[in-house]
């Protein structure tokens, strides 16, 4: 390829670039505002709304907090009532039966307790329990926390424990007696649900209307 001489660089000196123009205008604007001759549509003197936009949502939340909280609470109550009836009707057909298991082994592990904003770490006993059902042997573990209100599972005198299992899943043992809802409970749930809805209508409409 034949050698070409390099092109001379193009030089423009006539007009300044757009950036330079903008800078110049801004400068003049600043000068004008310093001389108190700013125009009415110059927003730079007013509040910075763009910066406020981010914090406005928190302000709105704070402003509507009590009403929103009440509405949330009401919605939560309605949905929770509904969910409870659903769960009750699901547990209607479950039939668990108690079974006796023997303690095979026990170990100490650390466990954390909470009581009214305070926390303690204790050593607790974890038991290995073994039980038999229809000729097969199953093993589960149970962490004995010994908290108030916990079910009494372990009987230390006899070295046994009471578990609840179901015929369909004998390996899946429960330590508490699982809830089996009666028709009475379902009716109670329905009544509560209806009462909440009636209260909703009364709250919205007023009692006398």
């Amino acid at each position, binding site marked *: 390829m034949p050698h070409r001489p390099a092109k001379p660089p193009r030089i423009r000196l006539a007009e300044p670039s757009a950036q330079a123009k903008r800078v110049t205008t801004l400068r003049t604007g600043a000068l004008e505002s310093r001389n108190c001759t700013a125009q009415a549509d110059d927003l730079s003197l007013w509040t910075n709304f763009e910066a406020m936009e981010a914090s406005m949502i928190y302000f709105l939340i704070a402003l509507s907090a*009590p009403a929103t909280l009440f509405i949330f609470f009401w*919605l939560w109550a309605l949905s929770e009532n509904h969910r409870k009836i659903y769960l009750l009707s699901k547990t209607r057909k479950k039939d668990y039966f108690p079974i006796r298991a023997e303690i095979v082994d026990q170990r100490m592990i650390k466990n954390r307790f909470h009581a009214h904003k305070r926390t303690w770490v204790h050593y607790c006993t974890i038991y290995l329990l073994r039980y038999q059902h229809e000729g097969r042997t199953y093993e589960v573990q149970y962490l004995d926390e010994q908290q108030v209100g916990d079910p009494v599972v372990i009987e230390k005198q006899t070295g046994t424990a009471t578990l609840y299992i179901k015929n369909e899943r004998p390996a899946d043992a429960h330590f508490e007696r699982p809830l089996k809802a009666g028709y009475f409970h379902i009716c109670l749930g329905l009544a509560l649900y209806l009462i909440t809805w009636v209260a909703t*209508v009364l709250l919205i409409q007023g009692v006398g209307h």
Partner: protein
Amino acid sequence: MKNWEIALAIVLLLILMIFWAFFARVVYGALTMIIQRIKIACMQPGTAQVIAFRVSTHDPEDRLYEDARPVVELELNCETKGKHFHLTLEPLTSQNLFKALELPEHSASCWMSDSDWHQLLDGRWIAIACNPRNEKAVLIEQLHYSREVVAFWLIASAGLVTTVLLAWYT
């Protein structure tokens, strides 16, 4: 007005403002929780294979764990809609892990040896719910629970809105 009355009014206003801030905090928390639940409810159910796992027992004094039963971290290989990605699940308690694997919840994890864990988890498929867009995943049980909660919230809010509309226009 006397001076002590003005002081009392200012104190009462301050207390009111503190309550107001507390309400706002609770509302903000509730909103965040609902948004989180909706996000989980919108995830897609899928399956993933366990590539790696780590079993560890934590001291409950580090404030993240309730007790010193084994905690399992899983690395999963997910595939949804032709997209392939790896992710690490949050540390799972052994009870939650067993539930996800459709095993009895109270299986004796404290008495399991390394070979038992390998036998249980090596190459195992697990049901998860994932969002392939930002590559996040939770266990399938969380998805079911979130969907249930969101459905009942929707029913309740729809009922409330209907009641308000009926009250206004009848």
